[in-house]
């Protein structure tokens, strides 16, 4: 009997701070070196500034601040991935890029119930061999939408 194909989803996975995240690969355009950011006056704290890339100006988001999980540190090895959802394009800080991973849908667990605001922006979680190896799968479209709403209503 032929083995049945297990449905999978592809995620761009990265680490920032102590946390591992995955973003649906269709939401990620490319990865850049962090380079020099231009800070902006009176932006929400989770927007670190803007960077120029291919003639475009990208706001750069600190995911840890956005999710109230600390704050990212920009160093020489820091990367920014260019994320897109509809007409919104944004850079997001990543300490380490883990790469593209195909994750069987059956391994994706629902986000923790009654979780914090980080949980609100998760599609689900994938457990790893240890507690630090799990991956939080982000609902990137919702995340960008919330970021924009928070920025506008201030």
């Amino acid at each position: 009997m032929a083995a049945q194909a297990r449905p999978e989803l592809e995620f761009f996975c990265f680490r920032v701070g102590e946390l591992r995240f995955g973003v649906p690969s269709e939401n990620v355009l490319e990865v850049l070196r962090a380079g020099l950011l231009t800070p902006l006056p009176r932006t929400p704290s989770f927007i670190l500034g803007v960077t120029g890339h291919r003639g475009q100006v990208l706001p750069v988001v600190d995911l840890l601040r956005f999710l109230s999980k600390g704050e990212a540190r920009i160093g020489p090895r820091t990367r920014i991935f260019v994320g897109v959802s509809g007409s919104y394009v944004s850079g997001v800080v990543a300490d380490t890029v883990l790469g593209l991973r195909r994750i069987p849908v059956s391994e994706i667990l629902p986000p923790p119930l009654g979780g914090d605001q980080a949980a609100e922006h998760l599609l689900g979680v994938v457990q790893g061999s240890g507690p630090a190896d799990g991956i939080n799968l982000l609902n990137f479209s919702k995340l960008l939408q919330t970021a924009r709403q928070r920025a506008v209503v201030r």
Partner: protein
Amino acid sequence: MSGNDLLDEPAPGLDADAERALGEVDVLFFQIGDSEYGTDASSVLRIDRALPDDLTVRDLGLPHKGHRAIVFDTPEGEGHLKVDAVNGVRTIPLSGLRRMPVAAAAASYAVGVCLDEEAGRPVLLIDLAETLKTQGRH
């Protein structure tokens, strides 16, 4: 005549220099603390010595010394912004300027950025008159 012919020909009454000027803007670059900013040079009246009451916009950073002031025109009169240095005026093609992304939700006086290769990073463009409104001064 094709559409491209229309774009290639100078508009009636404009010489080549005037036509080129339409696609460029003079940007005055200045320094506050460690940050460089730019502004439309046509809004600047002069560079002066700073006076104690001159404007400091905290969100743009505090000047190290602030011995100079950019004097600019507003509907209510002159405005004076303390700066550390004026780095000069450069003519920038409009193609090198970008509006501030709405998603960045920056202050209203941060109107855009200049993708200036010399600076190595985008330079924030400031509407000087708008800085006064946000500070409630003129």
